[in-house]
């Protein structure tokens, strides 16, 4: 399952927004990242999934040049974060997963400081974002809840003119309403041509926001593809009520049907693989009702994890 995402076709002018090649990061004997390859296309939302400790934050901190890779190559819009760090960070907005802000400053003071370091932030956009996020920038950061501090970091990222956003667990501490607002902001950013690299262990938000996904486990990418592709690899629960007795023998002979249960007219199983053979059997027998549960990313995720381990 240790496979990189399929490379995208692009000319030299159409470099990917982010390209990581054989990235390795060791901390002494601890191998945090063990050879990651991925490409993120311009203007897409790329979900970077995995549980805590999988290596997501380490990878992200290498992208920002906060960590120095043990080996491997990172390119952000064709630039090397090590050699062109200032230019890369001008093009990238970052929301850290572990957020620590200067406590004695107000939100407005921090916005001013970051604006000076970045060479400007869109003040109209800043005000608009503060309104949308329900954020009072006049309050000291130490007096804000963790959710409101997270909003300050999101505001700083979305008010920048960055071409790439790197968001590490961006909805930590946000209430459901604000999570919805965040997803809306991500969609707007994508529509405006911004590339979003969204790291999360919250599968539902990635499922709702991302175009493509890579799943990380113990420092390696164990699966990647579009959200639909990932779902397609997952198992589906199938429940069928026939008009007459279930054709148990025919169904038993089908490939990819596990945990089969036949109870009179009812047939239930877990399907992995293509559904076509099952549909062909069903077409030959009158069916009263049928239920096929669409797998969500969470199931896909867990399946992939089981397969990987």
């Amino acid at each position, binding site marked *: 399952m240790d496979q990189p995402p399929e490379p995208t076709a692009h000319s030299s002018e159409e470099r990917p927004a982010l390209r990581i090649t054989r990235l390795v990061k060791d901390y002494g004997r601890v191998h945090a990242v063990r050879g990651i390859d991925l490409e993120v296309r311009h203007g897409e939302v790329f979900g970077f999934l995995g549980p805590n400790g999988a290596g997501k934050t380490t990878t992200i901190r290498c992208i*920002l040049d*906060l*960590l*120095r890779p043990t080996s491997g190559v990172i390119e952000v819009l064709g630039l090397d974060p090590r050699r062109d760090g200032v230019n890369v960070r*001008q093009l*990238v907005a970052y929301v*850290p997963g572990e957020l620590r802000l200067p406590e004695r400053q107000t939100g407005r003071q921090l916005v001013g400081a970051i604006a000076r370091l970045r*060479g*400007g932030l869109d003040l109209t956009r800043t005000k608009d974002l503060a309104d949308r996020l329900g954020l009072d920038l006049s309050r000291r950061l130490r007096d804000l809840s963790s959710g409101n501090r997270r909003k300050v970091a999101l505001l700083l990222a979305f008010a920048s003119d960055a071409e790439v956003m790197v968001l590490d667990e961006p909805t930590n501490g946000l209430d459901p309403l604000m999570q919805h607002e965040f997803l809306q902001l991500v969609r707007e950013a994508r529509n405006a041509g911004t590339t979003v690299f969204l790291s999360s262990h919250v599968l539902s938000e990635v499922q709702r926001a991302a175009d493509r996904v890579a799943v990380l486990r113990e420092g390696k990418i164990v699966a990647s593809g579009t959200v639909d592709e990932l779902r397609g690899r997952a198992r589906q629960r199938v429940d069928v009520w026939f008009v007459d007795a279930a054709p148990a023998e025919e169904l038993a002979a089908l490939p990819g049907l596990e945990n089969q249960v036949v109870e009179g007219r009812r047939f239930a199983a877990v399907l992995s693989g293509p559904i076509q053979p099952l549909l062909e059997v069903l077409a030959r027998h009158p069916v009263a009702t049928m239920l096929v549960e669409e797998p969500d990313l969470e199931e896909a995720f867990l399946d992939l994890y089981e397969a990987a381990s």
Partner: protein
Amino acid sequence: MRATGRWLELLVGPFRASWRAGLGWTIAFVLLVVSTVAFWPAFKGSTALDQAFQTLPQGVLDAFGLQDFASPAGYLRGGLYEVIVPLMFAAAGVLFGNNAVSAEEDAGRLELLLAQPITRRSFLTGRSLAVLGWLLALAIVVLLSQLVSDSAFGLLIADDRIIDTVVLCALLGGLYAAIAIALAGIFARPGLILAVGLGLALVGYLVAALFPLSDALEPWSHVSPWDWALGGDPLVNATEPWRYAALVVPTIALVLVGIAAFDRRDIRSA
């Protein structure tokens, strides 16, 4: 314009962030200097105290700067500039240096800053200059407190001797700040850096003050920065230029070592 704003933020931001600590040190220095000089009229020309001190071994008198205590220079040396003021400058230097870099990194507060379009070199240069700026501000505070209270309480001593002495104490503080910055460039261990910085300040004093008591150790007293700063008795004698260089050159070298090391390592996250 962008570059100016960036540098302003890199330099003024950390300077402003330390204003509480700066205010605390300012109050401490002013109180110390004014209250010490306020007692000068009581000691002025007193021979009794000098006679009492004469019962102590010469080495002990030298170690604590108590020789010639009834003279203006002797009084200021023993009361302020032999131990307490340089020690306070050294402690301020270590604390400012440690808080500006290592403590911030250890708390995870550099993560967002260093993800902005700045180099680590410019970041640490800005922080170092902010620390040295605070030591300069404290030097001005001590100098003004000293000159004003000298005048108010009739302590007659040449202004250039006071200026020399205060500047040398501040430069000593700058050297210990640079040690903290150099260590912070190498690793983010604020507790360790604090212990090493303050420990080296104390050892520096002990080497300069106590080694002269032993004939065997006396030559080694000159390895201490305290000896470079105050070994020429600047309250009495004009300071040789090499003493300034001996403090400034290693300070610059240590900051450059810190910057080079910081540029090469991983940044610690929270």
